[in-house]
C-alpha cells in the first residue's frame, strides 16, 4: 500500500509538471494581452511596456515558466494581475466553499444514487424501477444551470424556504446547511443518476451470482443477503464512478457556483480566464489536477479495502 502511495506521488509530480507546462504555454499563446487589460483602454504603449516589465512578461516564455515553477515548488503560485492578491491565499480562502459544496453534493448523490439503484435492481421491472430509471435518465440530461435556476425559482423565490444564493455561513450551522441544500441538489443530481444506473446494473449482476445463492442456502436473512453479501460486491465498480464524479465536482462546479453566487474555485478560475489573469488560471488548474489525482489515489486505496482480491504489492 505504501508502495502504491509513493508510486502515485511520483506520477502526480510528472503529471503536474506536464499540466503546468500545457496551461502556461496555452495561456501565453492565447490571444489577449494581460498588460492591455490591466492598463485599461487609456494606457499608452509605454505604460503597457512598463506593466510587462513589472510582471516579467517581456522575458522569453521558457524563462517565465521556470521562474513560475521556482515559486510553485515553494508554495508560491504568484500574484493575481487583477487584485495583486497572492494566488495561494485566494485559493485557501475559496477552497473550503468548493470543498463543502462537493462533499454535500456527493452525499446527496451517493445516498440517493445507491439506494435508488439497489431498490431498482431488487425490484427489477417494478413501477419503482421504471420511474427511477426514467428520472435517472432525466437527471443525466438536465443541464445544471437550468436545474439550479428552477430550484431557486421554486424553493427560494416562490416558497421562500431557502436562500437564493451565497455561501458564507459555516456549513455546520443551520444557515450554512440551508445555503448548501439547493446547490448540492443541483450538482448532485447528475452524479446521483449516474451512480443509480451503475448500482442498478452491477447489483442485477451480483444478485444472480452463485455466492448469493450460497448465502440464501445457508439461511441468511434476505435483508442481509442484499445489504451485506450483495452490496459490498456491487459497490466495487460504483466506487470508481463516485471517485470520478467527486474529482470533477472539486474542480468543475463553475456553472453551479455562478448560478448560486458561491465564491469558490470554479468562479476564481472563470474570472481569471476572462481577465487573462495568468497566475490565477495556472494556480487553479494545477490545484484541480492535483485534486483529481489524489481522489483517484483514494479510490484505489478504498478499492483494496473493499475487495480483498486487489493487492498493490
Amino acid at each position: 500500500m505504501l508502495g502504491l502511495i509513493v508510486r502515485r506521488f511520483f506520477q502526480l509530480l510528472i503529471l503536474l509538471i506536464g499540466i503546468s507546462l500545457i496551461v502556461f504555454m496555452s495561456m501565453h499563446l492565447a490571444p489577449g494581452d494581460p498588460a492591455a487589460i490591466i492598463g485599461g483602454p487609456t494606457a499608452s504603449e509605454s505604460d503597457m511596456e512598463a506593466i510587462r516589465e513589472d510582471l516579467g512578461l517581456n522575458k522569453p516564455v521558457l524563462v517565465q515558466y521556470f521562474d513560475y515553477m521556482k515559486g510553485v515548488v515553494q508554495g508560491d503560485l504568484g500574484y493575481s494581475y487583477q487584485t495583486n492578491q497572492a494566488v495561494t491565499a485566494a485559493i485557501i480562502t475559496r477552497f473550503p466553499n468548493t470543498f463543502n459544496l462537493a462533499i454535500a453534493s456527493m452525499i446527496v448523490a451517493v445516498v440517493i444514487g445507491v439506494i435508488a439503484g439497489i431498490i431498482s435492481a431488487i425490484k427489477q421491472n417494478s413501477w419503482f424501477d421504471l420511474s427511477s430509471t426514467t428520472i435517472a435518465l432525466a437527471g443525466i440530461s438536465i443541464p445544471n444551470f437550468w436545474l439550479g435556476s428552477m430550484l431557486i425559482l421554486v424553493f427560494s423565490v416562490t416558497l421562500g424556504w431557502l436562500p437564493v444564493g451565497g455561501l458564507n455561513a459555516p456549513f455546520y450551522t443551520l444557515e450554512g446547511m440551508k445555503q448548501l441544500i439547493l446547490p448540492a441538489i443541483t450538482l448532485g443530481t447528475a452524479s446521483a443518476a449516474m451512480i443509480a444506473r451503475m448500482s442498478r446494473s452491477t447489483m442485477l449482476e451480483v444478485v444472480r451470482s452463485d455466492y448469493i445463492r450460497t448465502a440464501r442456502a445457508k439461511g441468511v436473512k434476505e435483508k442481509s443477503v442484499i445489504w451485506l453479501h450483495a452490496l459490498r460486491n456491487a459497490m466495487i465498480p460504483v466506487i470508481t464512478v463516485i471517485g470520478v464524479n467527486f474529482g470533477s465536482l472539486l474542480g468543475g462546479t463553475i456553472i453551479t457556483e455562478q448560478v448560486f453566487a458561491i465564491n469558490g474555485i470554479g468562479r476564481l478560475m472563470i474570472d481569471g480566464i476572462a481577465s487573462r489573469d495568468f497566475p490565477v488560471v495556472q494556480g487553479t488548474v494545477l490545484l484541480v489536477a492535483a485534486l483529481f489525482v489524489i481522489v483517484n489515489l483514494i479510490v484505489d486505496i478504498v478499492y483494496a479495502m473493499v475487495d480483498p482480491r486487489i493487492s498493490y504489492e
Partner: protein
Amino acid sequence: MEQLLDVQNLKIQFRTGEGKLSPVRDISFQVHKGETLCIVGESGCGKSITSLSLMGLLPANGEIAEESFIKLDSDELTGKSQDELRKLRGNRMSMIFQEPMTALNPVFTVGYQLREPLYIHQKLSRKEANQKAVELLDKVGIPDPKKRVKQYPHELSGGMRQRVMIAMALACKPSLLIADEPTTALDVTIQAQILDLIEDLKQEMDMGIIFVTHDMGVVAEIADRVMVMYAGEVVEIGEVEEIFNHPKHPYTQGLLASVPNVEDDEHTLESIPGTLPNVNEKIEGCRFHPRCPLATEQCRKQAPPIFHVNENHTSKCWLQEEANINDKSTTTS
C-alpha cells in the same frame, strides 16, 4: 431405514413470457436416513430445479404447484412461509453447488462465511463460532485450518473451496444434504477425494444425501439408490445394483450404453439419438417416445403410468406392463 424426505407429486411452475411452464412434473420419491439418492439425467432434465425447489430456492418467477407435497422428517415443507424455510436452510437441510470457484463470496473471509450459519441457526458467540469453524475445516481435511479461516476464497484452490463449501453446509449438522454436481468442475483426483469425504461424513452424521449428477461413474461410486429423470419426469427409480445390472427403462439403458468402457475391447459407445425436448414442447404419449428405439403405437398415444418392477424398483414405461403380464403368465402356467 427411517424415512427422512418424502416428496409427492412435485410439480414446479415458471411464469414466463410464453405463459406458465412446468420443467418438473409430478415426481415422487423418498430419501431415507443414511442413504444417498442419486438423481441422474441429461442437462436440462430438471434435476437441479428439483433440488433447488426442495430448499425453497427457486428463482423469483418459479413456484411449487399447490398439489405438491414435501415432508422433511415430520415437518411439511410445502405451505411453509419463506422465513420458516429460511430457518431450515443451512440448518436441517443444506446444499452444495457445482462451481466452487464462484460459490463463495469473494469479499468475506472463509472464517466469516463458515461462522455465518452458526450465528444464524445456533446463536453462537463469535469466539465459539470461530472455534467451530476451525474444527469444521479440520474435519473436511483442510490443513492448517487456523490460518485458512483468515484467508479469502481467492487464496484457495478449487478443491479446497469445495471442501469449505462442504464444511459450511455441514456446520449445523443437517439431516439432509443436497449436492448439485459438486464434483463436475473438479479434477478427477480431487473429485475422488471429495466423494470420499462426502461418503465419510454421511456415515458419521447419518445424513440423507441427494446427489445430482450426470456422471454414471460417480453414481456407481456413491449411490445407494438412483432416480433417473427425463424431460422433467422420473422415468426409473431403483437400487443402484438393479439400475446398473437390470435397467428397465429404454432411457436408462441408453444412458448406460453411452458410458465408455475401457475394459471391454468389443464395447462400442452408443448414443441416444435426438435431443431433450423443450420444456414447452407438447409431446403426446410418452415424452421419450420420439427418441426411443422400442417405441410402439401405444407409446405414441398414451403416457405410461409408473409400473413396479419389484418392491423398490419402478419404471415409467409400457414395456414394463408387458413384462409384468408375461411374468404373471409364466408363474401361473
